[in-house]
């Protein structure tokens, strides 16, 4: 039986090997503090260099295994290539929302407002892209609004007032 290349292993092996190689180069560039009379076996680049070299070798082995097309067992088969349209949309939506909240909203506006806005848009958006949704739009909007406000208030209250954590904004 002819084996086809295992692209997931091949590409992830390339990434790992490149990461290892880059780490090794950076480790070699680290100072050795000869002027301070430092022990050569305590230099900062020693451990990162060794780890990067090992990572590079393991990455190359994975590349070679990917090229051979061998999968060790069905339980080890990666799922990254198995997408349905619905799961791709849900995943993309989640990543975009998470990035928006973490980089644009959190810390740049009051916590309550940022969180209520995020929870509302996330909940309503996730429901709207769900093809099996049974809830009518008006119920969804009211429910989402109630959930967003109560969740934002509860989290703010618990962390700020009960556990004395200072939240941004």
């Amino acid at each position, binding site marked *: 039986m002819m084996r086809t290349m295992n692209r997931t292993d091949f590409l992830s092996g390339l990434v*790992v090997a490149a990461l290892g190689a880059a780490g090794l180069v950076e480790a070699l560039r680290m100072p050795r503090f000869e002027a301070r009379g430092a022990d050569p076996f305590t230099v900062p680049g020693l451990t990162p260099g060794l780890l*990067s070299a090992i990572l590079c070798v393991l990455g190359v082995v994975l590349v070679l295994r990917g090229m051979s097309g061998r999968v*060790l067992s069905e339980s*080890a088969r990666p799922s990254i290539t198995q997408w349905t349209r619905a799961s791709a949309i849900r995943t993309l939506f989640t990543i975009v*929302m998470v990035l928006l909240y973490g980089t644009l909203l959190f810390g740049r506006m009051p916590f309550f407002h940022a969180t209520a806005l995020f929870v509302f848009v996330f909940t309503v958006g*996730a429901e709207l892209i769900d093809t099996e949704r049974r809830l009518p739009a008006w119920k969804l909007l009211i429910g989402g609004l109630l959930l967003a406000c109560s969740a934002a208030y509860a989290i703010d209250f618990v962390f700020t007032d009960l556990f004395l954590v200072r939240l941004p904004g």
Partner: protein
Amino acid sequence: MDGLNHFLGAIAEIGFSAQIIVVFWATLLGITVGMIPGLTATLGVALVTTLTFTMEQNTAILVLICVYIGAIYGGGRTAILLNIPGTPANAASALEGFPLARKGRAGEAMAVATTGSFLGSVVGMVGLALVAPWLAEFALDFTSFEFFWLAVFGIVLCGQLTAMDDALKGWIAGFFGLLVAMVGQESIHAYARFSYGIRDLEGGFGLLPVLVGAFGCTEVFIVMRQEATRAVAGKVTGVFHSALSSFGHARTWLRSGFIGTFMGVVPGVGEDMGAWVSYAAAKRASKRKEEYGQGSTEGLLAAETGNNAAVPGALIPVLTLAIPGSAPAAVLLAAMIIHGLRPGPLIMITQADFFYSVVAMVFWASCAMLILGLLLTRPLLLILKVRREWLMGIIFVLCTVGAFAIAGRIFDVWVMIGFGLIGFLMREAGFPVAPMILGVVLGPILDNNLRRSLALTQGDPIPFVTRPISAVIATLVFLIIIFSLPPVRRRVASLRTRFMGGER
């Protein structure tokens, strides 16, 4: 005898004070976290850690241990009723629990899971009380050479056991974690590695933001990526009768308890393997093998006993070596350090009282889990009706706040999201996340002890393999690597087939 007195004193201290209320609410919180698909025990312990900052140190650790034990148990409910494990540790339970629920025996399955979890915790607690003092005393002989090998051993074994038959990917994840730990200022020359003048990077990546990202944020992506699941509807009957009858399977729960405790002790392996190995051992020893996969109460009992026994087991290396036995135990270790506790070989000398308090905490959390699990069987089912679309946004907010609250830095939020994306890609590409986290924890131990040892020997590597304890650990590392190689595994399998008459 002295230890027993300490233990009984700690039991009374918790049992006859307001801390008993803490035990019940924290265990209930843990069960709830474990029951919600997508919320793992690691995430639960990490998020609750941020809530314990202002608590007194013993109360804080009590809360975290209760959440940890409750969450591992709670995940079994989801496995039984939804056929998806509430936490990865309950995957084996789904194999037997869900078929039981589909046959209308959900109540019986939940009772068996409850009793099994309780018995597992108790066996693990006995293991913790007996093994940890001995291991701590033994570890007093460890020097930098042994600690270096211990870190390597943890990564190699964890990578091998958690990678679903693909040790190479487990090792890559582990060494990647070790490399991540190299970012920031090192301890000998105070040089900021891989920082490029970025001040936030000079402090390195915080363990909790990385953990919350790799387990919590990743889980949000994974849950949203998967198809929705529905709980099996059915009557919940026969709970107490089934719970009592489970005590009768002494061989199964004792065997699973021992296996689970041992798997917990192994660095970075923890509850998942505790459940799977216990389940496999129960199946091998069973007289009713044909029931496995069709709804075997014996298999379910083994899996649930194994995963909960791994919890006290995972605390053994945390307390005695400051090396986590599992991912949630890694968070617990970080929490102990945050609260000013110093786990390690000296624990029995400097903090013996605290050690026996931890054993008592495990005892009370197990009792609370049994009581709540049996009494609240029906009300707890309501948690499974929450739709993921209404939950995941809030979970991500909690991850964000959890990552931020530790140091009050927005940078930690970005680290959390970054490791969430990395964890998601890793899991999708078939790489386990647990070895990476273990690598982040063990990185400083490996780095410091390697350089310290080499400085002591003037670069001579021979003592790494000639000192007795080092030699033993190094040999184990070597054997794990050799027996993970596919040609060797194939050869061993063919030899086994030949000598055991085809039985595998």
